[in-house]
């Protein structure tokens, strides 16, 4: 939105040279293209999951598999509850990230710091939830190559379900972990006035793009594994 002022005067000459034809900074364009390629990676994972699922007669019922909640008594039946908590954690951390980017555009250092801290806390909370869930499933006997869950119709299942679940949520979790590390670096750079010296907070915007992408992928992973 900050670019609209420059856009209106030179609308017709974007490709005339001397400026970015996309009216965004180089690093941001490259972040977009990186995210596009990453979208293809996740897309390939999820489509192969779908293909294998379509080629199989039975599949475990996610509401039976993901029915537990931390600190709840053993054998509790709470499908979808824990994963909705995880989903909301990620949505909220995405919102605080937008607020950090917005504060950065206003050169509001305190706003950036405050919202980045919330975003990092959200990311760590999500990772903790995922660690708990993986640990719980592992103790139920689920892991790569091991599937203790029967198909929804009571027939024997293959290990495809657990293999895809751990690979894809693991790959997503690794993205969350790198996002948290990037956000911590951004926080340190903000606190040491790196961006104040540069005169802009564009790095926060790039980190923000990555963080929103992680949230975006979770929308798809969450739907494909827990709801469908």
């Amino acid at each position, binding site marked *: 939105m900050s670019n609209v002022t420059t856009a209106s005067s030179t609308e017709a000459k974007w490709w005339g040279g001397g400026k970015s034809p996309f009216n965004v900074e180089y690093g941001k364009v490259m972040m977009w293209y990186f995210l596009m390629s990453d979208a293809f990676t996740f897309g390939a994972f999820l*489509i192969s999951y779908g293909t294998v699922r379509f080629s199989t007669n039975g599949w475990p019922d996610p509401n039976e598999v993901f029915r537990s909640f931390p600190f709840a008594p053993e054998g509790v039946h709470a499908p979808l509850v824990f994963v909705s908590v995880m989903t909301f954690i990620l949505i909220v951390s*995405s919102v605080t990230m937008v607020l950090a980017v917005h504060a950065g555009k206003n050169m509001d250092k305190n706003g950036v710091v405050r919202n980045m801290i919330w975003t990092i806390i959200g990311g760590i909370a999500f990772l903790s939830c995922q660690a708990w869930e993986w640990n719980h499933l592992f103790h139920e006997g689920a892991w790569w190559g091991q599937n203790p869950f029967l198909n929804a119709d009571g027939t024997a299942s293959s290990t495809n379900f657990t293999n895809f679940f751990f690979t894809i949520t693991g790959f997503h979790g690794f993205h969350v972990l790198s996002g948290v590390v990037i956000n911590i670096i951004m926080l340190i750079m903000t606190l040491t006035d790196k961006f104040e010296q540069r005169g802009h907070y564009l790095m926060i915007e790039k980190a923000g793009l990555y963080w929103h992408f992680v949230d975006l992928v979770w929308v798809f992973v969450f739907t494909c594994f827990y709801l469908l």
Partner: protein
Amino acid sequence: MAHTHTAEENKAVIAEIKKVTIILSVLTIVELILGFWMIGMDNAGLKLAIKGSIVILMMAKAFYIVAYFMHLKHELKNLIMTIVVPLALFIWFICAFLSDGNSFRNLRNTYNPYFKEQSTIKVEKKASPNHESTEGAHDEKAHEQK
């Protein structure tokens, strides 16, 4: 580029963030309600319709995240097109690969009696994780492929 917003613009941006947050939360809650509704449902047709609506809601959520949180809607059209047009390949990927998976299942059910039989035999639910039996199932699979 480090031009700061006026108070008016600030208000508009914050209002947009609030609006999108509410939309995303509502869409997620609707998805969860549909998910709870599906638990233990026997009607296969209705179940398929609900799954279709969940996919549509998922696409709507993706749109709001990309367009507003990632700010793509406010970029120049050229940039939007270089990102969105390649992703249109996914339409073909999904159609092609899912129908391939479906066809593979039909072929196996027609020509592989063992595969067909396995999907009709109900087995006992394992009381505790038993790694031995999973290994056994693996060996049988390996034989089947030979």
